[in-house]
């Protein structure tokens, strides 16, 4: 993905270009792939889809520090900072589009022929849909004691796996939400 090409067990780091700023500079986001010794599912983690919601980035870093690829059956793909334009300006949304479609979390699956934020979403979602078996998307709220989770009420295999994941994550306040058909690849 981007410049991160994982070809063997171990940790690979690189970047994925998701946008360009008005001066033509690339907006590249960090990508970390940890490929296990054995085959298995791919867990996709991302943080800062809202640029100033930093907790996910720190949680991902903490999780990766304790991860040994030799103990892994499958892979972890981690993108700690998705909305880098917002991150750079310490705000939730793109500074270029703001309330006019600048909320990356509202633009998936994106559109390669759309607005900048839609193109960013498309650049990320193409890989997400190709590689991820399980997605965990981190957000941050007002205070450290805010701890709740959502999972899709999808039914079938996807619904069963989603509920299993939500229960294993285990935040007491966990809400089923209506699912969105494009969000599932099989």
């Amino acid at each position, binding site marked *: 993905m981007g410049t991160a090409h994982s070809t063997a067990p171990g940790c690979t780091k690189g970047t994925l270009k998701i946008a360009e700023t008005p001066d033509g500079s690339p907006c590249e986001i960090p990508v970390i792939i940890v490929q296990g010794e054995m085959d298995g599912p791919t867990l996709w983690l991302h943080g800062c889809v809202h640029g100033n919601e930093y*907790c996910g980035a720190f949680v991902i870093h903490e999780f990766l520090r304790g991860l040994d690829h030799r103990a892994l059956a499958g892979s972890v793909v981690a993108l700690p900072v998705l909305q880098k334009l917002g991150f750079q300006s310490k705000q939730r949304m793109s500074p270029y589009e703001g309330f006019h479609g600048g909320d990356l979390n509202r633009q998936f699956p994106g559109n390669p022929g759309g607005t900048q934020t839609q193109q960013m979403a498309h650049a990320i979602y193409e890989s997400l849909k190709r590689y991820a078996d399980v997605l965990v998307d981190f957000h941050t709220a007002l205070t450290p004691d805010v701890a709740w989770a959502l999972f899709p009420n999808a039914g079938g295999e996807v619904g069963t796996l989603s509920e299993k994941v939500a229960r294993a994550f285990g935040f*007491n*306040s966990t809400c089923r939400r209506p699912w969105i058909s494009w969000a599932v690849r099989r």
Partner: protein
Amino acid sequence: MKDVAERLRNLSRAIGLLSGPVTSYGKLTTFSNFHWATSPYGGIFRPKVKCGDRIAEGDAVGTYYDLFGEERVTTRAPASGIVLAIHPGPIIPQGDVLIHIGLNPTQA
């Protein structure tokens, strides 16, 4: 952060990515929906509830003060449920999220 990283490891064990026993966190509290209320006022704000509290519609959730330190108004819960987030103060801009309530909590 360490707690959430451990939850990620537990999730990884549940899907077979890591080996080892999966911790059970017990029943979950689920909701029929959420109620997000934004602040009708700006100013100094002191919350009266905390995350996890069960509240009833009409309960006091926080008090606004003016710049003289005088109490202006106590704001009331717009719905019954579990407090999932409350603005911590000390200053709240008008229109910021005041309180997030999980409606009709049930154990599942």
